[in-house]
């Protein structure tokens, strides 16, 4: 018999194991708001959540925080380690500090907001997620990104959007270099509308959509080009 859980719950990771924390948050009966204290950089905090609950991690998260998230709303009060919100399906993960490498990797849906900077390979192989970074992103961000949107209010590092499929990238600052098959695109009215909505969802009001540039796939790597046959 399961026990109904009340609306405000606190879990202290100095007293509870990660396994127990996740089992509790993954419970079918989980509802309401949760505060996870003393995360201290532990890995895999609040992963695989499926219920529409609100979870606040009160400090620094380690690897894969909020991974595979569905429906839950997660706030990380500090920095996040590698692979935050990796393979997220829906819901939202908000990082108040910086995120390490591979933020939002392979994520299919939902919203990832990073208030600080994101490290290398932000949005690598993203498959439909919306990622909004208030700061800058590191090298090879949106590498092989397939769909979804990456919004960067600061600068982007080397090889942005390398081997890109169909994701859209918006950058407000400078792009150190574009990766193979990534090019600047015309910003359409539809793009501006989308960007306006994403900035709003991320709680960013100080930047206008018009101050961004849009990048996307040149689609030259989609098919094998017969002129290159001699190279193999």
């Amino acid at each position, binding site marked *: 018999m399961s026990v109904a859980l009340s609306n405000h719950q606190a879990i202290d990771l100095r007293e509870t194991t990660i396994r127990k924390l996740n089992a509790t948050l993954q419970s079918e009966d989980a509802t309401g708001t949760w505060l996870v204290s003393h995360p*201290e*950089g*532990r*890995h895999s905090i609040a992963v695989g959540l499926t219920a529409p609950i609100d979870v606040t991690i009160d400090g*620094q998260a*380690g*690897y894969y925080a909020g991974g595979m998230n569905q429906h839950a709303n997660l706030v990380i009060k*500090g*920095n996040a*380690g*590698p692979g935050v919100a990796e393979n997220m399906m829906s819901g939202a993960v908000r990082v108040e*500090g*910086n995120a*390490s*490498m591979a933020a939002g990797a392979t994520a299919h849906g939902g919203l990832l907001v990073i208030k600080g900077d994101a*490290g*290398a390979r932000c949005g690598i192989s993203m498959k439909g997620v919306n990622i909004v970074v208030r700061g800058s992103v*590191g*090298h090879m961000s949106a590498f092989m990104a397939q769909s979804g949107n990456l919004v960067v209010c600061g600068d982007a590092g080397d090889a942005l959007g390398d081997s890109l499929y169909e994701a859209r990238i918006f950058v407000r600052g400078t792009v150190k270099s574009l990766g193979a098959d990534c090019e600047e695109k015309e910003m359409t009215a539809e793009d501006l509308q989308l960007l306006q909505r994403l900035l709003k969802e991320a709680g960013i009001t100080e930047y206008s959509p018009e101050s961004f540039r849009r990048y996307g796939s040149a689609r030259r790597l989609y098919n094998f080009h017969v002129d290159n046959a001699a190279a193999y």
Partner: protein
Amino acid sequence: MCGIVGLFLKNPALQPQLGALTAQMLKTMTERGPDSAGFAIYGGGAHGRTKMTLRGVTEVLRPDFEKSVLSLSDSATFSYRDDHLVVSCPDDAVSAIRELVAEYGPDVTVVSSGDSIELYKGVGLPEEVAARFQLAQMSGTHAIGHTRMATESAVTTAGAHPFSTGPDQCLVHNGSLSNHNTLRRQLVRDGLSFETENDTEVAAGYLSWRLSQGERLDEALTASLSDLDGFYTFVVGTRDGFAVLRDPVACKPAVMAETDDYVAFASEYRAFAGLPGIESATVFEPEPQRVYHWEHAA
């Protein structure tokens, strides 16, 4: 995998705690490297004297060894920690003691030497290795440590990190180098010798070689970006501080924390959790291909 930690104290009041803080950091990196561990700790040097850390002077050898060293230098002192021995001697006695050590065969080796470096490493869980050498009781100005999950060479004490190939220099490494055999052969032709098949020892030797050509540490590290092929996050210890470098791809993790009291380095934030004042520290990731360097004013 592998875990790296480093702690550089700005506030001298923390020096008595250096060993305890480093031991705690090493322990949290056990999951990244459970097969062996090691650390270099800097401090307590005296003008005109050199500290040589030796491994392999067993209890059986001790009386004879000490007598031989004292016959070369009557002011030499001996400090044992498990299977490691630190000999403190006047600078001008170092080469004679090195020759003496060579007479004891390959089981007795000089693992480091310099004004202030002491270097200890061994096979086993990081916590056990730290306890064996009583790291928690040590004090100093800065320390770097490593927890190893071996990939490129065997799990042995000699294969554990740090590697020291020059005076007061040492290197710890997370990653793997792919051109270490070629580079080792080149360095051997230039007169260097290597004790293991380990890739990191080659990187350490490479840096020492460049430093011996008169380059500064930041110049030597910048040059390594073109000459070393593979994955690496390096932390290099020197007499006065430490430096950090990540390869261009930067797939090996690195995080740093800075307060008014210290600069700390680790593979993961977890290692910082027990540091004083970490809640208000500036925490950041070092950028790839950029040399970060902290040192005490000489």
